[in-house]
């Protein structure tokens, strides 16, 4: 399963109008040994990840390391400046006055964690301004839920099986969608 694999060009798209039906359908279809390419929904459907066999994201772990980087950068920057490069005597206080550096170090931690995480999120999700996505069905950002199946290498019998499984599990519509270019213009 991958978010926007361009290895395939032909898809069967099953559309559902209720998230509960969708979840049951995923269970049934996967237990029949049919591989689901992806699921599209207008909002995050809770409980869908384990049913699709998705592993938990590690983006929060990345966030932790970005945050630690921020802490380290903040502390080393201030240490370099205040202790070595420009040691300034203010009222006989120590040059390296850690407690008064906490606010800046904290802000640096948050800044690095947030910016780093958002960048990771954009890269991993393949999101950038001007990216043209493959739109399987326009209604999946409005009110419908879709399951997609890559059928480039599937036989007629397999395709029939997928379609009948979709209808059986309560899909309100079953379509086939073909993309001709790797990047399909918005239609």
């Amino acid at each position, binding site marked *: 399963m991958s978010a*926007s694999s361009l290895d395939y060009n032909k898809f069967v798209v099953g559309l559902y109008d209720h998230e509960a039906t969708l979840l049951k359908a995923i269970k049934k279809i996967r237990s029949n040994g049919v591989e689901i390419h992806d699921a599209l929904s*207008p909002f995050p459907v809770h409980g869908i*990840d384990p049913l699709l066999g998705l592993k938990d*994201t590690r983006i929060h772990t990345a966030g932790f390391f970005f945050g630690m980087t921020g802490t380290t950068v903040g502390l080393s920057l*201030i240490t370099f400046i205040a202790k070595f490069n420009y040691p300034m005597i203010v009222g006989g206080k120590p040059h390296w006055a850690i407690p008064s550096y906490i606010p800046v170090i904290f802000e640096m931690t948050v800044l690095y964690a947030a910016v780093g995480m958002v960048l990771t999120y954009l890269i991993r999700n393949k999101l950038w301004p001007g990216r043209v996505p493959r739109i399987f069905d326009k209604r999946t950002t*409005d009110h419908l839920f879709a399951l997609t199946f890559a059928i480039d290498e599937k036989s007629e019998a397999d395709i029939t099986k997928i379609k009948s499984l979709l209808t059986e599990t309560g899909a309100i519509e079953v379509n086939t969608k073909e993309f001709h270019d790797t990047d399909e213009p918005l239609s």
Partner: protein
Amino acid sequence: MSVYESPLREALILGDDKNYSKITDDIVRNTEGRPPLRWWIAFVISAATALFGVFCLAWTVWFGIGVWGLNKTVDWAWDITNFVWWIGIGHAGTLISAVLLLFRQKWRTGINRAAEAMTIFAVVCAGLFPIFHMGRVWMAFFIFPYPNTRGPLWVNFTSPLLWDVFAISTYFTVSLLFWYSGLMPDFATIRDRAKTARRKMIYNVLSFGWMGTAKQWQRFESLSLVLAGLSTPLVLSVHTIVSFDFATSVIPGWHTTIFPPYFVAGAIFSGFAMVQTLMLITRKLFSLEDYITPAHLESMNKVIVLTGSIVGVAYITELVIAWYSGYLYEQYAFYNRALGPYKWAYISMMTCNVLSPQVFWFKKIRTSVFWSFVLSIFVNVGMWFERFVIIVTSLHRDFLPSSWNYFTPTWVDMGIYVGTIGIFFTLFLLFARTFPVIAIAEVKAIFRSSSEVSRAQMSAPLDFSDVHHAEEHGHSGGGAHATVQHNKNFNEQ
């Protein structure tokens, strides 16, 4: 899906004709077609005010900050009051999105988008004041630590003014990222229903090419949660650091340890009031009464009365501690604050902030749209006076009586302040016309549990008819037996 919501909770999406596509229609409709006349009227007024503000800023830069009402004794007044006021307002957005997300408050979804936008615009307005107070604005970048040709010359990391630079720039960046990451899926919704190619292209660029795959949503949820976890201490730290600007000084009336919590409570207080003001206007202007419901307004009013009371306790604590400290100058500072030449400001502050929100203890008033609006304005005014009182009254009586002075703002001072309100509303109106003002995806996510439609479809709440029967039986048969009977029946349900 097994969603259980207590039937006691009010529905958060009203209207018995709602479904997912109706939600999309209702929210996206405001970005489509021509803006209504009332929008144009509001926009022209705001933009004209904003332009006047820009003119006053240009005037300041051209003639120097001598055109402001500041004097040698009161060298911080109008500008820093406005700065703290705007920053305080800017706290509600992140608070609503982050803290309420961590507490799993579903009413957050109706108002978080607009509140976050408000945060960003308020921080923009706030930032103008310290930058222009620097005098030579074109050297504003000197506040950042960067290697330079002025010798090894760096900023002072032990100064709260520098902490402010870091706190506010971080706060602005993180709020912007939080806001925008939530907007992407909603921009995709607008893109997919766009009629013209140009509109489709623009909203696709804005949506970053969002698709809505399971993995994208999984990462989206993880990102929102962690950003909320980061923003919560951030939002508290920002106003704490703003309060340090005063608290770490040696001015009587400023150097009190109560400042950080008191400023944070005040920020939440004023921020919620501003959200309330904006939401009441927005729901009316864009007919979103089904999504910003009386239940939302009531929840916000509850937060307002809570934080207003905290602020009230802080005011009184300050007075008591000044008396208890036995420190003459501190005592004088507070005596002068309440009864000196600025007592009119002190009285305004006390009335608007401490007394007026107390009427929200009455359910009738806190669920009334009219009173919510009136009181939200009162709180906005009161919180402006709070900052003015703290800053000006503590400064105008200097250590040397020969330096005692009185601060009066000039037309430039007032023009810049009114101008920032214009800038704020101009940005907000542009936002409300082109962006989804309510988080579409998030509202859809609570549809099954919290809408009037789903409430009606949910199986009826526990049937207590048997229990009542048992109680009646118990009254005739004896207390102990009745209790047993009651429990037994209840367990069987």
